[in-house]
């Protein structure tokens, strides 16, 4: 039984596409087959983050127009067995696809893959409705910032109204040192506000930008980097494993904080 999961956030720029690409790679690394659907028509980027942009030939629009078969449009990742991408059309807008059509594609893919991850565009308009049309469950990506949390709450409400009730939260770009200084909301704060179960905490890390620069998902690079570990943990939790959350605060024992503690801070 395959799972169709939409990755969404409401607000743009919180890391939906980064999450989709890294989580897709992490799932594939657990020896599961996974198809990533870029639902961001007109502003596609998932191909770029995966480093597959040069190999895109057909897009979802071509499949819907009957110009190619679904299997032809899928771009296979040569580094990871079982990971494929269905690219969005770049020269069209969101209105060129309807929810029913997206549903058809996702359900067709579900026959051949364990996981279908749909990268949702920002906003709550047609693009969003397309992306969630086939979804059985959702991963909400948010950052510990007011605008992102507010939008996440709105999207959770919309998903519940659409009957998507299996909703899990990923808190992205957590800066533990800021939380410690009470300058940023903690993961617990965000959880309390949103009231949906947590499935992952991803620390803010320069390595994420470096990895996107190279078009290489983090889990393919250094295995022990903290964000890579975070994505692998999410993949394992999706499989039903009980994996403890990373202790981000543990890494904050640098000279500065130790000095401060010495002075009673």
């Amino acid at each position, binding site marked *: 039984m395959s799972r169709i999961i939409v990755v969404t956030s409401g607000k743009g720029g919180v890391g939906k596409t980064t999450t989709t690409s890294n989580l897709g790679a992490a799932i594939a690394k657990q020896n599961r087959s996974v198809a990533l659907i870029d639902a961001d028509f007109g502003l596609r980027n998932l191909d770029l983050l995966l480093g597959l942009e040069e190999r895109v030939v057909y897009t979802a629009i071509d499949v819907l127009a009957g110009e190619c078969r679904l299997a032809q449009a899928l771009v296979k990742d040569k580094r990871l067995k079982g990971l494929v991408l269905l690219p969005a059309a770049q020269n069209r807008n969101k209105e060129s696809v309807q929810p029913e059509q997206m549903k058809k594609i996702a359900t067709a893919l579900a026959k051949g893959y364990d996981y279908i991850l749909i990268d949702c565009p920002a906003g709550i308009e047609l693009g969003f409705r397309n992306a969630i049309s086939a979804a059985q469950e959702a991963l909400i990506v948010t950052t*510990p*910032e*007011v605008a992102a*949390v*507010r939008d996440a*709450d*709105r999207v959770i*409400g919309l998903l519940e109204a659409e009957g998507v009730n299996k909703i899990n939260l990923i808190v992205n770009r957590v800066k533990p040192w800021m*939380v410690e*200084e*009470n*300058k*940023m*909301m*903690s993961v617990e*704060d965000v959880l*309390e*506000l949103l*009231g*949906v179960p947590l499935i992952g905490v991803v620390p803010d890390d320069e390595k994420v930008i470096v990895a996107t620069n190279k078009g290489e998902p983090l889990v393919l690079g250094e295995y022990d980097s903290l964000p890579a570990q975070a994505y692998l943990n999410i993949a394992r939790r999706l499989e039903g494993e009980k994996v403890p959350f990373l202790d981000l605060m543990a890494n904050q024992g640098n000279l*500065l904080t130790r*000095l*401060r503690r010495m*002075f009673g*801070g």
Partner: protein
Amino acid sequence: MLNMIKRLLEMLFPWNNNTNSRSHAKSRLKLIIAHDRASINPDMMEAMREEILDVVARYVEVDREEMEFSLCNDQRMTSLTANLPIRQIKRMCELKEQIKENKSLDLQQIEITEIELEAEVKPNKTSI
């Protein structure tokens, strides 16, 4: 240069600047999320507030300055919380005066409850 020293000091001694933006963000979000979820527009909220206050004010004197009226949310449940500090509970005679103007209230009902209350008190007195 001065700025740099200031920043360094702030980094070393964060308690010097008591800006706790974390709790600020949280409390602001609590309020706005509750509003978003309940999707009551401010005008409607204000009208509801006035009406509730009118009703309450008929029976008790409310401290209008100290009162709080807000939508709260807890684990995806939204509730309306009104915190109305009572200055004084009105006397029965005052109440009757007010009710005369408002025919929708059943005056007799209130008199009965008052009598019942008195009846409860009296036996106690005799027992002492």
